[in-house]
């Protein structure tokens, strides 16, 4: 009966803080970091001219048809 609100508030404040911090850490290491790695990997050895020639040959570029 004593400290009814204070006890509840303390529990929930701490819980809310931990849960939100947990969500942030999970997102950072589950989503954000892998995404940054993926982009770094992709652009490490990326040759745009080669990509362009491949797309042109496939015929998807209206202004640069395969000749």
């Amino acid at each position, binding site marked *: *009966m004593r400290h*009814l609100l204070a006890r509840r508030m303390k529990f929930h404040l701490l819980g809310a803080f931990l849960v939100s911090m947990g969500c942030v850490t999970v997102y950072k290491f589950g989503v954000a970091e892998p*995404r940054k790695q*993926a*982009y770094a990997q*992709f652009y490490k050895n990326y040759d745009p001219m080669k*990509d362009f020639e*491949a*797309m042109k040959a*496939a*015929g*998807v570029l209206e202004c640069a048809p395969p000749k």
Partner: protein
Amino acid sequence: MLASRVFSLVGRRSISTSLCLRAHGHAGVVKAEDYSLSGYVDRRDVPLPEVAFVRDLSAQQKALKEKEKASWSALSVDEKVELYRMKFNETYAEMKKGTNEWKTILGGVLFFLGLTGVILIWQKHFMYGTVPHTLSEEWVSAQTKRMLDMRVNPVEGISAQWDYDKNEWKK
């Protein structure tokens, strides 16, 4: 009256008004004036409600109330419990106890989800016509091929799953 029946059906609530007393068949008929008077509540943060729980005492209970005016050490344990129950409806332990309401609610939710599923299946089978030709097997594969040629989402998306050297999906 119907509302009080619903109260007793769903389970105990934290607020027990005189209307609920009627549903449980307790003593005391509720008159119109009673709604303007203070009521009894079972709440954790109200340790001493405005009125006692039992309003109209029987002769036996009245005698006990008289005995209460004398020394309390003269009262037996049963009499003390009876006096408590006259003043309060539930103990704190009883008040804080959980109900089984969640099972009813979960059951109801799942039932209606299932019913909705049945309705959707019936609709797909009996009501809807054929899907557009753009969802046929050939069209979708031609569409996917064009997406791969255009290098759609090459970093994390569909073109990243395709092996351009071996001309097949990556393992």
